Structure formats: structure tokens, C-alpha cells
């Protein structure tokens, strides 16, 4: 039985086929066992003897240096499988009601199945080639789900933006595979691979992995696609663009941390990227008039915390925050889905105000999620993981740690702004309809995680000791419910939350900071479009032009060859 566990990524494929072929009482039901099985696979491994399971097909692609197909199920992968399985189960159940009246719900569930399969492949990958297969697979699923509602004019450009950003990461991983010597692609032993054969050694390889991770987790200059990705259905935003796929970059950094630790310069860059993204995205969230986009920026900010933790030599803190963040951010997104669903698709904060009386239980669950995001000590899971990151920050780079502490105030501000804007008053003119059980139950489960997961920290630390090479880092970090730094951070966050409440009371639900224009994104897009038009314009049907191109091209090639010789 155990030997089957590394094949957990195929669990959703029967559901995919059945759903795509139109089998099952109603769309989505046939898909439901898939994520449950994924969760069960992770849990079974954790409850078993916890021996790493490796599946290897040595000669899968002999044309490559790294020819093997390797799957690995160890502690890190098992915990991640549980995260993917649990969040996707919640999202599937939620979507049964959320997508009930959508004409494309069958396609929606088939695509979700495809996403979960590729995400599990990414998690279970034992070497770089298999990782890339899962990596690009989730990118494709993300694109298809973002552009799911083709009638929305912004859907396709948003999907293509996501695809373009992910392509940068894919190219980085492709190059990492290309430059590794034969048979050296095993993810757990990249640091012991014959790095002397790699130009630039560990630093080059580490930098490529960081680029890939930054693209997937929308960090630094590659942040732009995640807010646009909110054009997709809200359950997709919860599953892919908050809890799982965007966290894959952090997962990769944790998985390959021994290699990263050989490149201190790269790690420092990771820390800076994380801190800057955490702060700027926090400010960005305050500028958004749209509910989901506000949450998207908040995701960027929290992913920045995780990146910073890796940069502070604290991969466990990063992974722990990934785990807790998955629960409360999925909760907040699903709450947003309930609100948008109840308000007949309205996403603008200015139009959503005062839903507290109409959506009482949702408001309470949103409050729990918000407190977890801020990191209210003892009571919420976010506090446990965020404290670890702040401690690591103050230990390794106090200035950066201080900036992250400042970021907690921003977290309080943007979380408070969103909560008060939607639920803060009770004078709504909207006629919101209450969600059904299918939509409420997953919220309750995730809220439990948002409160209780922090207490699993010590056990998780012991479990991941081997997978994250925590021994090599010295004493594994101690997870605690209360610390002076945690209390200070909690107080700052809560302060920010309350200030945001006052701000919304004064300025109304539409309260937001003036938006700053980021010219380089539009400029890059326009430049690419211009280049594309110019290149395609060469093929205009005029024979003379073609002949000119041929002759000039031939001449230039001869010249190039002569110069080269």
C-alpha cells in the first residue's frame, strides 16, 4: 500500500475523466474523491513509519543528462500534500454551490482536477525534470482557470499575463536542468551534485531556482500577474492564487535550501526581495478599490514574509507560515466569494459596505481570518509562524527584521480596511442572500485551521528536521505561543486594524489610498506588442520585400560567419 503513496498525483485523474466525459449525478461530484485521496495519502504517510518513499525510473529520457523519473514522498512532501488535499477539498465542496448555475461547471471541475494533479506532481517531484513537469502544469491550469470566464474582457489578458510571468520561471528551471551535469538533478542532493561542472557553481543554480520561485510566487518585479489573476472565479483564487500554487515557489526554496545556503549572496537577495515585496504589496493592497485585488496584494505581502524567512536562513519558519497562511488566506478568499456571490457579482468595495447584519456568520469567519492574517498572539495560527519569521529577521539582519515589523502595521491596516469596508457597518442597501451549507462548511473548517494550526508547530518542526536539514542550521527554531516580539507585532497589527476601522468610518467603504502608476509593466507590454506587430509585418505578401530579406539575411550571415572565423 505504501508504495502507491508517491503516485498520489494520479488520484484526481479518474475524476477528471469522469467529469470531462459527463459522468456522475452532477458536475463536480465525480471529482470530489480526488482531493480527499490526496489528503489521505499525505496523512497516511504521516501516521505511518515516516520512511521516505522514492520511486525511480532510471532511464526515462536517455537524451537528457538527468534521465530519471523520480518521485519522492518525505515529510515535506507529505505535509504539503495534506495542505493541497485539505484546501482543495474545501474549495471543491464550496464550488459545488458557488458554480452551480454556471454553464461551464463541468469544465471548471475538470480543470480543477488537472490543477490538483499537477500540483501534487510538483510536490512529489524527486528531481528537477519531474518538478518542471508539475511546475509548468500548474501554470497551464492557472492560465486556463484565470481565463475561464471568456466573456469577461479582462480574463484573457490576465491569463496571458500569468502565463508570461510563469514562462520566465519555466525558462529558469529549463536552464537549471540544462546546465546540471548528468544524473545530478535530485532535488534533495543538489548541494552535493558536482557543482564544479556548473558555470558559476552553486550561485548560478541557486539564482535560477530563485528566479523560478519568484515567478511562481509573484515576488519582486514579477508580482504583476497575481492581482490580475483575480479575474478568475473566486474558488480558483482561493485554491491556486492564495494557498497552493503561489506557495510553490516557497516550497521549492525550502526543498532546495541546502543548495541555497551554499550561495549566501543569493540568500541575501531573497531576503531583500521578500522584505521589499512584503512592504510594497502591503501599500498596494491599501490602494485597491476592488475586494479581491486587495486580498491578492495581501497574499503577495505574506509570500514576501515567507521569502524573507528563507533569506534569513529560516526555511522552517517559511514553510510553517506557508501552512498557516494556506488556511487563513483560503478562508478570506472563500469569504470574499460568499460576499461576491451574495452581492450578485459585485466586487467593488465602495458598493459592498455594511453586510454585517445580512451575513453574520460570514462576518465572524472573516474576522477570524483577518486576525490570523494580522497574527493575533495565542489565538491564531498566523501569530506562531509570523513570530518565527520576525525572530529570524532580527537575528540575521536586524534592519530587515525591523522593516518586516513595520510591515505588520501595514498588514493590520489593509486587513482592517477590507473587513470594515465590507462588514464594518450595518446600513447596506444591497440585498445579499445568505450562503448555503456547501459554502459555509468549508469556511468553518478553514477557520478551525486558522486558529489551531499554530499549535502543531513543535511537532511539525520535529517532523521536518530531516527534510529541511534543520540540523545543519544549528538548533531548530522553537515554536512558542507567546513572546515579547510576538506581543509587540500583535499589538501593532491590531492597532493598524483599528486605525483602518476609523479610516473606513470617516471615508466610507470605498476608502483607499491614491494609486501609484507602475509604468514599466505597461511599457513592457506595449513594447512586446510593437515588436510582435513589426515582426509579423515583415510578412506582408510583397515578394520584393521577401527577396530583399533573403538577400540581406544571406549577406549578413556570410559576414557573421566571416567575422566569427
Amino acid at each position: 500500500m505504501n508504495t502507491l503513496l508517491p503516485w498520489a498525483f494520479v488520484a484526481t485523474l479518474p475524476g477528471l475523466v469522469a467529469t470531462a466525459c459527463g459522468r456522475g449525478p452532477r458536475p463536480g461530484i465525480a471529482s470530489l474523491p480526488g482531493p480527499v485521496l490526496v489528503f489521505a495519502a499525505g496523512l497516511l504517510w504521516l501516521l505511518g513509519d515516516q520512511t521516505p518513499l522514492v520511486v525511480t525510473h532510471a532511464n526515462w529520457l536517455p537524451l537528457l543528462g538527468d534521465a530519471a523519473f523520480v518521485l519522492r514522498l518525505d515529510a515535506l512532501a507529505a505535509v504539503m500534500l495534506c495542505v493541497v488535499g485539505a484546501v482543495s477539498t474545501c474549495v471543491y465542496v464550496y464550488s459545488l454551490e458557488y458554480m452551480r448555475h454556471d454553464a461551464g461547471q463541468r469544465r471548471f471541475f475538470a480543470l480543477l482536477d488537472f490543477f490538483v494533479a499537477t500540483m501534487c506532481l510538483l510536490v512529489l517531484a524527486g528531481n528537477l525534470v519531474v518538478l518542471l513537469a508539475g511546475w509548468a502544469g500548474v501554470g497551464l491550469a492557472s492560465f486556463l482557470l484565470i481565463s475561464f470566464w471568456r466573456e469577461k474582457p479582462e480574463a484573457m489578458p490576465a491569463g496571458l499575463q500569468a502565463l508570461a510571468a510563469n514562462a520566465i520561471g519555466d525558462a529558469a528551471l529549463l536552464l537549471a536542468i540544462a546546465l546540471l551535469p548528468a544524473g545530478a538533478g535530485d532535488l534533495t542532493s543538489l548541494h552535493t551534485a558536482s557543482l564544479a561542472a556548473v558555470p558559476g557553481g552553486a550561485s548560478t543554480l541557486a539564482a535560477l531556482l530563485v528566479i523560478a520561485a519568484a515567478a511562481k510566487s509573484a515576488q519582486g518585479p514579477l508580482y504583476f500577474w497575481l492581482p490580475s489573476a483575480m479575474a478568475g472565479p473566486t474558488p480558483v483564487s482561493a485554491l491556486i492564487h492564495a494557498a497552493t500554487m503561489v506557495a510553490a515557489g516557497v516550497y521549492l526554496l525550502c526543498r532546495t535550501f541546502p543548495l541555497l545556503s551554499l550561495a549566501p549572496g543569493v540568500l541575501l537577495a531573497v531576503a531583500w526581495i521578500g522584505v521589499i515585496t512584503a512592504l510594497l504589496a502591503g501599500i498596494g493592497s491599501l490602494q485597491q478599490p476592488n475586494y479581491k485585488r486587495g486580498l491578492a496584494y495581501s497574499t503577495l505581502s505574506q509570500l514576501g514574509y515567507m521569502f524573507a524567512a528563507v533569506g534569513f536562513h529560516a526555511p522552517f519558519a517559511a514553510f510553517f507560515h506557508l501552512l498557516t497562511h494556506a488556511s487563513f488566506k483560503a478562508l478570506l478568499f472563500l469569504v470574499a466569494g460568499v460576499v461576491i456571490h451574495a452581492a450578485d457579482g459585485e466586487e467593488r468595495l465602495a458598493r459592498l459596505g455594511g453586510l454585517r447584519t445580512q451575513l453574520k456568520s460570514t462576518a465572524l469567519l472573516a474576522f477570524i481570518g483577518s486576525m490570523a492574517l494580522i497574527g493575533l498572539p495565542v489565538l491564531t495560527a498566523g501569530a506562531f509562524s509570523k513570530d518565527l519569521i520576525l525572530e529570524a529577521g532580527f537575528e540575521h539582519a536586524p534592519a530587515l527584521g525591523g522593516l518586516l515589523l513595520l510591515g505588520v502595521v501595514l498588514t493590520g491596516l489593509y486587513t482592517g480596511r477590507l473587513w470594515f469596508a465590507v462588514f464594518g457597518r450595518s446600513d447596506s442597501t444591497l440585498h445579499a442572500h445568505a450562503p448555503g451549507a456547501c459554502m459555509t462548511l468549508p469556511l468553518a473548517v478553514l477557520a478551525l485551521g486558522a486558529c489551531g494550526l499554530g499549535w502543531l508547530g513543535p511537532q511539525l518542526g520535529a517532523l521536518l528536521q530531516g527534510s529541511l536539514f534543520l540540523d545543519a542550521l544549528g538548533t531548530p527554531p522553537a515554536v512558542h505561543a507567546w513572546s515579547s516580539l510576538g506581543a509587540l507585532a500583535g499589538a501593532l497589527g491590531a492597532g493598524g486594524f483599528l486605525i483602518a476601522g476609523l479610516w473606513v468610518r470617516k471615508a466610507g467603504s470605498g476608502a483607499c489610498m491614491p494609486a501609484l502608476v507602475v509604468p514599466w509593466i505597461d511599457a513592457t507590454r506595449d513594447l512586446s506588442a510593437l515588436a510582435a506587430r513589426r515582426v509579423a509585418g515583415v510578412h506582408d505578401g510583397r515578394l520584393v520585400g521577401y527577396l530583399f530579406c533573403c538577400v540581406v539575411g544571406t549577406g549578413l550571415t556570410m559576414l557573421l560567419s566571416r567575422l566569427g572565423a
Partner: protein
Amino acid sequence: MQWLLDLPHGVRSAAVLGLFATVVLVGAVRLRTASCSAIALLASLFAAIPTILAPTAETFPVLLVLTALIGCELLMRSDDLADAQHRAESVALQLLGAAGACVLATAQDWLSLLIGFESMSLAVAVLAGLGRGVRSLEVAFRFFVLSAVAAATMVYGIALFSYATGSFALDAAPLVHPGHAALARAAVLLIALGLAFELAVVPSHLGTLGICYGAPLSCITFAMTVSKVAAALAMMRLCAQRPELQPVVAVLAVLSIVWSTFGGLAQQHVRGMLAYSAVGHGGFLALAAACGPAAQGTVGYYTLVYVASVALVLAALSGQRGELSFAEIARTPIGGMRRFALVLGLLSLAGVPPSPGFLAKIAVLSQAWGTAGPWLTIGAALGGVFGALYYLKPVPDLLAMRGVDVERVSTPTRVRIAIALSGAAALLCMVVPNLPASWLS
């Protein structure tokens, strides 16, 4: 009879194909569509017999060309020709072109290379002109002129090479004279630039672009499978025999990949996308060929994957007229099976993991890193991954199937067979890539 057995495999197969082409042409007036297809398939099988009986590394190019021809024939329809009666001419031209392809793919000397090239490009030019409307004729004329320029470049190169070395052999060394080595190098480069026309590599790619825009689908199928296979294998042979070519071909290959990515992004219809796809994949094939003898297995694997993927796409589009704009593709009456094949083919052409196209691309990039150098590999990798953007543009609409009653759209049997065969080949290349790879190596 001994002289017949002593002929190279490519020439023997070409002779069989030529014979059948003559038979078809003689009986053109009386032959019907079904009998034309049967004769073409029979010719392919007969031509393959000598290579199947004596399988060696030399027979592989012939087999690949003939496999492409069979796939191509399965997809043929006469309703995109100007006149259904042209079907017999079309088959004869394909057989003639395939004969040229066999010679080109196995050529050991420059003259064989030229004869193969000319037979193939002439066949494609006339095939292009058999389509409906004036546009088809315009495309055929442009292709004809551009192929003549490429052939002239090649002839000029061969003449220079012969002067510098006193030989027509591919691997002939220059005569002992200070200027002859440089002359031979320039000559080989000119020949390679001529050959680049069939491979659709920059700067000789504009002819193939035109074919994809305006020729009938049957001609596109031939140009993108049979011609491409033969040209790729010939380029591989050329680069293996003349290492001085490799850096230049690698640069042109990467330029083609980048060019196709930009050009493809501006496309709003499937034909345009396929056109730039041909250039991009020509670039990847040329890059693999430029990696020298060590990459021969990679060239073979990439070629196989490319033909399977293109066949999937073209099989799905078989019978469709017009440009197939992305905006309309959701409403195009294509059945579920064909939509699925089209999506899989596009994903494979885009190189999305775990499709065979992805495996083929990383195989090429791995080879290129060691031989072509990091900068060119980075360029190819970036071009390759951003190229996925234009392939994936129509995919959400294809999956959406708005307003199409799938149950009412039937798929002809021969298209089902073509989809099944190309799908099986693609699946084989994906699930057990070591099988074809080890065979091709």
C-alpha cells in the same frame, strides 16, 4: 540486379515512389479520390520495404519520411483543392516530393542534396497552387520564386565547393591552396542557407510562412511534415560532416525561435499561428542539428515528436476552410475528439510539460548548453517558453465549445485513424521516451 541493391536506401525508396507517381499521373484522368489515396499508401509501403528488410541507421530517415507521408495522406481531402479532379495530380506531386525528400534526407553528396531539394520544393510549389482562389496561386508563385532563390544559392555554393575541393562529396577536404579553405567554408554556408529554406529557418523562412497562410491544408501538411523531416535530417547530416557550420546554424536557429515567438504573438488565427510555429520548430530542429553528431538521437526524437504533434493539430483541422480566427474557434463546428486532439497537439507544440514537445525541447536545450553555449541556450529557452503564449491563446475557447452541438458534429474515419496514430506516437514519446530515443540513437 546487383547495381539496384547497391543503390543507397534513399534512392531505392525514391525510385519506388517515382514509379508510383508516374502510374498515378498516367491514370490521372480515370483515378478517383479513394483509389488515389490507396495508391499513395501502397507506394509508401512498397518504398518502405527495402528499409524494413535491412534496418540500419541509414534507413531511419527514409522510414521517418515515409511515415510522415502516410500520415499526410491520411489527412488529405480533395475539398480544399480548386477542383476535386486535381486529387490525382496532388497525389502524384506528393509522391514526387516524397521521393525528393528521401533523397535529400539520405544524401551523401551535394548533387543528391540539390536534386532532393529541387524535387521537393517544386512539388510543394505546385501543390500550393492547387488550392481554391487567387490567394493560393499567389502563395504558390511566391513560394516558387523564393525556392528558386534558395536553389540558386545552393547551386552557387556547390559550384564554389567543387572549385575549392575538386569534389561533390559532403566531407571533401579543400585543395592545398591558401584561399581554398575559406572558399569551401563560404560554399558550405551558402548550401546550408539554401537548405534553411525548407527548414523554415531565418532568413529563408518567408516561403513556408506564405504556405501556411494561403495554401490548401493538404499542402501545409506535406510542407510541415515530409519536407520538414527531410530538411532536418539533411541539416543534421550537413552539420555533422561540416563542424564549421555549427556556430552559424546555431545562431540562425535561435534567431528563428525568437522571431517566431514575436511573430506568433501578433497572430489572431490558427493558420498564422501554425506558420510561425513552423519557423520556431525549424529553429529548434536546426539548433539540435547544430549540436553535431552527439545530438543525432535528439534530432530524430524532436523530429518524431514534431511530426506527431503537427499531425494531431492538422488532423483536428482537416476539412476546415479559412483562417480559423481565435475569436470564432469556440463556435467552429469541430467535435469533441478533434478539439481534444487539437488541444493536445497545441500543448505539445508549445512544449508544455509533460507533453512530448516539452521533453523534446529540454533534450535540445540540454545538448545546446554544452555545444552552442549558454547565451544561445538562454535565448532559445526564453523564446521557447514565451512561444507557448501564442499556442495557448485559443485553448480556453477550444475547451469552452460555446454554442457547438458536439453530438451532431461527426469525425470522418480517416481523420479518426490519423488522430489515433499520431496520438499514439505522441503518447509513446511522452510515456516511454526512452524507447524511440534509444532506437533513434
